[in-house]
């Protein structure tokens, strides 16, 4: 890479974008990080609406007690598929798409390090997703045992078990390749002057997330492979009848699963750490503390997995270890929350849509964090286990956390991607509509959960009727609000007449804002010269 011929890059700079012609050549064979980023983001938005429509059906059934619209078997498919689609189809590809678009532009690289692998890691996804979703339309229906696939229940299905496992294998391969690419790009392709501790926090968050991905996705692959051989090849890893242990699956699964929840939130932390300084017109408070807290959250996330299974009958020593370990995560997370607040302190804040989403993220993610600490308390968790309290907790951290982070990022960088400003008025309508409805949707679930309403059940005690109706109304409202989001994006990309400037936002710092808007098809063919005041966290000496 060191030998970039200046003559060649000059010729490139003089030409126009020279994108490949023809739809297939442009999108199917593309190795351009911006194209692949766009593909990921469009894929993720599609999956978000499919997974969201499943959630609408769930809320419709739960609108009233009793069985109105569907049989329990179908309801169980909906909850299982909603979880799998949102995690592997919506949230993770969205973050990988943002990484593809932004990381090369943020570190002054011409493209990702391994562009062909990049193409491959995207194009596996639609096929994996097809395998997953088509099950619902096959005889016997989709998997019904929950996205966590606990045996022996998950193995009671028919052919759908194989479909689900192969879909997960493919998605795993895709994210591992994506992660390797991101690691190689960040370690090898930084422009001169972009030291590790001067990288934007979004890049840092993705470097750490990528390491988590290559460490835990293979473990999930191993766990589902064991499920596969248990189901179809007569092994007994988890069959109690053959000397196996179903609880062992939970240990292996959550060894992947807990780091996975941080894989879905760390990049959002990075995004928020970019947006808040921009709209507060102040450098990020405590840049190094932010980086180290990211790293310590990632480390701690690998040793707390059994807090998902306090009720399986662990020895007291184990319960205590996992309880204190989990609570310890509150410390680096608290560092981040306080640093965001300190960044805003005495800043000249303006409230454009990305900033509104970022502030909502800080407040609502913290609520989800608090209910997480409540769940970490072993004796209390015996009451929360498998109730709607847990559902409320992880939707606060995943919807108002990860998803709001993604939406903030889309509003923040969309002008850079498309060259047009989105409609600020409709962006704000989308924000307020979403932030109110999401609380109407999930806050009452805390109450019904504490009162004992179990999750994954299509019917419930009439005592929970009012809160469930409220929750369903919030759900439909939140679901419909997302069509505003879709409309704002389509309008911005195709119809908006308001051109974006290169810097887009008055307070924006960082290499991506030195490029024109829309970002040219090939950027930084020659490495930029970097001065500290161009960087997102400002002119900070280390």
């Amino acid at each position, binding site marked *: *890479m*060191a030998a970039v011929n200046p003559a060649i890059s000059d010729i490139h700079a003089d030409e126009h974008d020279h994108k490949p012609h023809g739809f297939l050549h442009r999108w199917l064979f593309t190795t351009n990080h911006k194209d692949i980023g766009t593909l990921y983001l469009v894929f993720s938005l599609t999956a978000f609406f499919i997974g969201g429509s499943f959630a609408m059906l769930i809320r419709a059934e739960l609108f009233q007690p009793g069985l109105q619209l569907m049989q329990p078997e179908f309801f169980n498919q909906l909850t299982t598929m909603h979880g799998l689609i949102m995690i592997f189809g919506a949230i993770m590809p969205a973050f990988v798409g943002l990484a593809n678009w932004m990381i090369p532009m943020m570190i002054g*690289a011409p493209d990702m*390090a*391994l562009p062909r692998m990049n193409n491959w890691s995207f194009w596996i996804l639609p096929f994996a997703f097809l395998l997953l979703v088509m099950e619902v339309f096959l005889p016997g229906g989709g998997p019904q045992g929950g996205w966590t696939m606990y045996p022996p229940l998950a193995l009671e299905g028919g052919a759908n078990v194989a479909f689900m496992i192969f879909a997960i294998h493919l998605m795993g391969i895709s994210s*591992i390749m994506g*992660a*390797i690419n991101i*690691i*190689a790009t960040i*370690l*090898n*392709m*930084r*422009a*001169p002057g*972009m030291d590790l501790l001067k990288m934007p926090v979004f890049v840092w968050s993705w470097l750490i997330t990528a390491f988590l991905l*290559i*460490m*835990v*996705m*293979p*473990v*999930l*692959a*191993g*766990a589902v492979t*064991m499920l596969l051989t248990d189901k179809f090849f*007569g092994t007994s*890893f988890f*069959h*109690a*009848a053959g*000397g196996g*242990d179903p609880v*062992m699956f939970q*240990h*292996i699964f959550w*060894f992947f699963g807990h780091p996975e929840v941080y894989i879905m939130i760390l990049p959002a932390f990075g995004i928020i750490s970019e947006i808040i300084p921009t709209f507060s017109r102040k450098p990020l408070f405590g840049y190094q503390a932010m980086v180290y807290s990211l790293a310590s959250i990632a480390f701690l996330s690998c040793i707390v997995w059994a807090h998902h299974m306090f009720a399986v*009958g*662990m*020895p*007291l*020593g*184990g319960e205590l270890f996992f309880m204190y370990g989990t609570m310890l995560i509150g410390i680096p997370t608290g560092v981040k929350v306080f640093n965001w607040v300190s960044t805003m302190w005495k800043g000249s804040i303006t409230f454009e849509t990305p900033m509104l989403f970022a502030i909502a993220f800080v407040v609502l993610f913290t609520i989800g964090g608090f209910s997480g600490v409540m769940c970490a308390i072993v004796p209390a968790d015996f009451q929360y286990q498998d109730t709607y309290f847990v559902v409320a907790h992880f939707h606060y951290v995943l919807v108002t956390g990860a998803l709001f982070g993604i939406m903030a990022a889309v509003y923040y960088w969309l002008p850079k991607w498309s060259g047009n400003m989105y409609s600020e008025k409709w962006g704000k309508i989308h924000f307020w509509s979403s932030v109110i409805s999401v609380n109407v949707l999930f806050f009452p679930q805390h109450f019904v959960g504490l009162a004992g309403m179990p999750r994954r059940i299509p019917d419930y005690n009439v005592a929970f009727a009012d809160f469930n109706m409220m929750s369903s109304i919030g759900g439909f409202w939140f679901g419909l609000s997302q069509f505003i989001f879709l409309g704002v994006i389509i309008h911005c990309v195709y119809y908006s007449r308001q051109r974006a400037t290169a810097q887009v936002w008055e307070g924006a710092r960082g290499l991506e804002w030195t490029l024109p808007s829309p970002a040219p098809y090939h950027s930084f063919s020659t*490495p930029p010269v970097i001065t500290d005041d161009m960087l997102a966290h400002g002119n900070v000496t280390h």
Partner: protein
Amino acid sequence: MSAGGSHRGVLKTTAIVVICAFAFGFAMVPAYRIVCEHVLGIRLAQTAASASTLAGMSEDTSRTITVQFVANVNSKLPWTFATEQPIMQVHPGKLVDAWFDATNTSSHDIVGNAVPSVAPSAASAFFNKTECFCFTEQVLKAGETRRMPVRFFVDPRLPRDVRELTLSYTFYANEAATQRLSNTVSPPPAAG
């Protein structure tokens, strides 16, 4: 680029991490066993306690332990299975018999295996079975009923705060053994 190492180098290193992580998933299978049995003292293997374990123990009549029995059948096995005594009061160190009854309600011969579980799990290391129907495969002919014993004793070293133990059995169909049985004993049934 100035930061540049070789991409191939990063690819190699990360690929090794991925392979190690995949292997680690499978390494957790034996590791789980070792941690449970040697670190946490939970007994996973279903083996008979030897008579010598009992030989060195004296009956502790100062304590009485309530042992509860639970009998379950997996939904794929057409048997009924029940315990004759839901509750027994035993002294630690004394060898006791409990009886269970299983009936094959189907019209063909089936092999079943019973899987025991002791709660609380911390006490499982102190619950010893010298003889149990769960150690072997149980073959029940169509309609046959069998009375089956469990001979057990509670180790007197059982922590003093444990006053109650639950022994639960779940019977599962042993499909492989049932298949073997139908192949050797009777000619394969006509296709239908």
